[in-house]
């Protein structure tokens, strides 16, 4: 779940209204867009491509990496599509707007870059066969979604990695229909959580050869938030046991939380976790970019005997993009140990 993206997308649609209203405006339905329906039947590779009749969509990749000396790195790349109106006419008039974020996180640095593009003129887009998702010179491409290469660069960093999937696609919620609120807001949501990564990071100190694992999220929707939801806390974790976990909670202004998750077995079979199957509890906070953020969490899933706490590689992993949020690599210890990514949004103000 990437609420920051939704927020961004919404701001692009109604920039003057959204800022004062915050997340409250996101429940506003926009005429003409399709809404996700339960029990989806995906068709691949077509569904790896863009869905211009839905308002928002993303290709979201996070990677936990290490160099030969065992130093940890995090890598993040996201391509967002935001439709100002349904459909795609091509040319400058196309309502399809694209933007993207890239970042590399080390123990003491968090390097980021942001791009914007018009869809209709070919500056950004997604093609399905062979697969290619791009904005400017940033590209995520390969013969299929299982074998990809990824490049991106900012003014202080660059990366060039290859990804090979060694597991199946994972469908969240009900076969990829992921409910986000008690009121029934939902998105289509599937992941490829099992990439093996090799590649090179170009950092201010020089090139670093890295290996590790990556997780790709695919999600699209038109109206995924309920009126009172203000932000998200989201985890993608890979445990040393080979099991994986997606766990997220949506925070409402009244203090209530709507939780959801997916438990992934080493063979790729999944179990959807409902609102009462897991808890996410902040255990320590840090000053980040002038605000107090809960950078350490306790995650409990009684049915899976999971009780772990997470700490960030770099607590200052603040994405200082046009809409800022926190996104960075984390490590978990406790009943299980492992690593993954945490994203926290709705803490802008």
């Amino acid at each position, binding site marked *: 779940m990437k609420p920051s993206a939704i927020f961004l997308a919404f701001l692009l649609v109604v920039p003057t209204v959204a800022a004062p209203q915050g997340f409250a405006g996101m429940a506003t339905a926009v005429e003409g867009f399709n809404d996700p329906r339960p029990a989806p039947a995906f068709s691949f590779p077509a569904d790896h491509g863009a869905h211009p009749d839905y308002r928002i969509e993303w290709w979201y990749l996070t990677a936990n990496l290490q160099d030969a000396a065992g130093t940890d790195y995090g890598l993040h790349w996201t391509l967002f599509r935001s439709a100002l109106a349904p459909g795609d006419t091509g040319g400058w008039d196309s309502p399809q707007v694209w933007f993207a974020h890239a970042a590399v996180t080390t123990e003491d640095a968090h390097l980021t870059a942001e791009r914007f593009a018009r869809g209709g003129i070919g500056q950004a887009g997604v093609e399905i066969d062979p697969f290619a998702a791009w904005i400017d010179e940033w590209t995520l491409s390969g013969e299929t979604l299982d074998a990809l290469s990824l490049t991106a660069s900012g*003014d202080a960093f660059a990366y060039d990695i290859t990804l090979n999937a060694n597991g199946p696609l994972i469908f969240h919620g009900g076969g990829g229909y992921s409910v986000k609120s008690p009121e029934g807001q939902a998105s289509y949501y599937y992941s490829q959580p099992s990439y093996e990564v090799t590649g090179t990071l170009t950092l201010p100190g020089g090139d670093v050869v890295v290996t590790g694992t990556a997780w790709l999220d695919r999600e699209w929707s038109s109206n995924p938030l309920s009126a009172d939801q203000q932000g998200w806390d989201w985890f993608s974790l890979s445990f040393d046991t080979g099991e994986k976990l997606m766990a997220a909670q949506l925070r409402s202004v009244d203090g209530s939380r709507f939780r959801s998750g997916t438990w992934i077995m080493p063979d790729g079979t999944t179990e959807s976790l409902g609102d009462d199957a897991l808890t996410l509890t902040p255990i320590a906070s840090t000053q980040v970019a002038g605000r107090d953020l809960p950078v350490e969490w306790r995650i409990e899933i009684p049915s899976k005997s999971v009780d772990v706490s997470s700490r960030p590689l770099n607590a200052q992993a603040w994405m200082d993009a046009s809409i800022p949020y926190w996104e960075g690599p984390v490590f978990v210890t406790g009943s299980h140990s492992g690593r993954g990514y945490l994203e926290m949004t709705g803490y802008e103000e």
Partner: protein
Amino acid sequence: MIAAALSSLWSYWRRNPLQLATMIGGLALATALWSGVQALNTEARASYDAAAAVVGEGRYDQLVPRAGETLDEATYLALRRAGWQVSPVLVGSLDLGEVALHLTGVDPLTLPAGAGAAGQVAAVPLAQFLAGEVMLAHPADLAQFGTAQSIDLIASPAITQGMALADIGAAQRLLGQAGAISRLVVAPDQPLGRPPLAEVAPELLLQPAQGGSDTAQLTDSFHLNLTAFGILSFAVGIFIVYGAVGLAFEQRRAMIRALRTMGLSMRFVVVLLGAEIAVISLVSGAIGVVLGYLLAASLLPDVAATLRGLYGAQVAGTLQLHPSWWLSSLGIALLGGILAAASAIWRMSRLPLRAGRDPQVWAMQSARGQRLQLVLGLALLVLSGGFVVAGGSLLAGFARVAALLLGAALLLPPLLEVALHVAQRRARSVTAEWFWADTRQQLPRLGLALMALLLAITANIGVSTMVSSFRLTFIGFLDQRLIAEVYVSAETDAQSAAIEALADDGITVLPLLSVETRIGPQKVDLYGARVAPVYEQYWQFLAQDGDVWSRVAAGEAAIINEQFARRAGLWPGDSIPISPTVTLPIAGVVGDYGNPLGQVIIGEELFITLFPETRARQFGLIGGGADALMARLEAEAGFDPAQMIDQTALKAASLEVFERTFTVTSALNVLTLAVAGAAILMSLLTLASMRVPQLASVWALGVTRHRLGQLELARAVALAVLTLLFALPLGLALAYLLLAVINVEAFGWKLPMYLFPADYARLAVASIGAAALAALVPALRLARTPPARFLQVFANET
């Protein structure tokens, strides 16, 4: 005590309202001319800046096409896909019938956040802007739009008048330039690993941020021209004020003596007089600002037309009030007043307390001043010559002109003195001798007004000689260049083909192939010429090397125009790079008075090889008569009469543009002459009352009042004639400087000088008439002075 002193100082002005009016009028006029010109300049510059600021020109590097006016959208995409963080901008003139808006199309998603347009777009719903549904314009411009526009308008006070802002997609649609981009703004932060520009888009040129806009560089000379006129007018105005202030102080000597005997220190009197001048200057300044605004507002449309015609620069047709403008105008009025009064106050504080008010004393006092003037005048003339050595820049050219004019003006009174002295020697009757002697005696006072007249006549002769010479040269140039009988614009490839097919019937077809390109740092128009015998027949070269046309036809040489040759210092024998791969020797340099841009002409075949995408859309046709050709094209190839123009009509249209270009110059010329006339009138009026004592003696000797009046008029005419005689060679010298120095620096062409005796005769009649007219009122007044007033002079002396 202070109140009493103030009241007595003020009482003088109350008793001499005409002198007060002279002061205020002179200073107000000077301020008006100065500030009017400043307003014109400020407005035009603000317009360029506004156009440039839309995308932050000057703040960001830019990529511009090496050749042609636009680059292809595909090039933009190639750069983005290679990592270049650039943002597309398309600019163009959006024609709305009566007026045109300067439309800038931007892509708000990629525009650097610091660009001016980014802030303006943020005020609009982004979805509508990106969809090309809205255009931002100044509220005052919205009224110009009909309802039939294909785009919604949003009033934005942040947009400068005459400008409009839209999404680049909308701009491409509105300007009819699908897929075209004028330039790319380069973001300050660029990603790692970006390939060099030459690898991705060798057809583009990186323009560094501090380069400034082409428009500003081009139009600098025009604005310097206007400024020079403003300074000239201001100087003429200050002469008037100088005369009036000197007189007022002279006549108040008795009053000041009285004030001092009552115990006021000289220092205090000087402070009071200074304060008086300051108040008068500020009042005059305020009036001048209003007049200047009106002047600027009435001239602005012509200035805008000139700038558009000459340089293609867009200037909003309406004037806006900038606080800096009227504040500086008040400042310049104050400065002018103090400058004009400074010497009078200084002299007053030095003259002995008991000095009389006899003008003869004043005249003798100023004899020393005249010697100084002579020396200074000569020094300035030498300096004017000296700048030839320093020469080189436009500023040096104007400095030469200024030194020449000022030096000549300073020399005028001594020279007139000599002339009058000679006349006096040769006088045969007593009356005549008195007439010349009396004229000499008045010279110091009238000198300033005459200097103003001299400057005005000189400027008139110089500028009109330049414009008329330019005009003759331009007409000759048109005859040389417009050699085809008919000029046709094709709209489609089919129409182009139909025109080319005429060649089969023995009609000479001359396609006009051109691209805008850059050679080194210079923007030039590159033409491809289909060499025909008519070119050899009509074109004349300023410099040439061998058989120019056959070398050009063979693609072995290029022709360049004079302005390019002078700016780049390239002449026959030198070589120029036409493209990255082709360098050609220069075969000929040709005079070109159509625009200040450089031009390079190469053979058609070579042009097509270098720019295969450029199609000729304009053609010249020779053979069979204009009317027959046009009728045939209309009947056979479906050409609209609006697509064709015959040679005569085209020449007329070109000349019209030329005439409009100099409307402003001639308007300012007339105004300067008017100011000089006013200067003479005011000097004579203020002198009139002073001269009653001398005239009383002459009257007592038997010369009638009527005869005195006639002599008064004759004196003005005699002085004007002498001034005119002096002004004529000076004016021609000025014309030479303008043609051979200023024009070369400003436009890049040197013009032959022609003489226009009939024009000078007309000007002589006008100047003498103006002087006579100015003298008429004082003369009439003198003729009607009651004898009692003359008698009173003697009564006071007993």
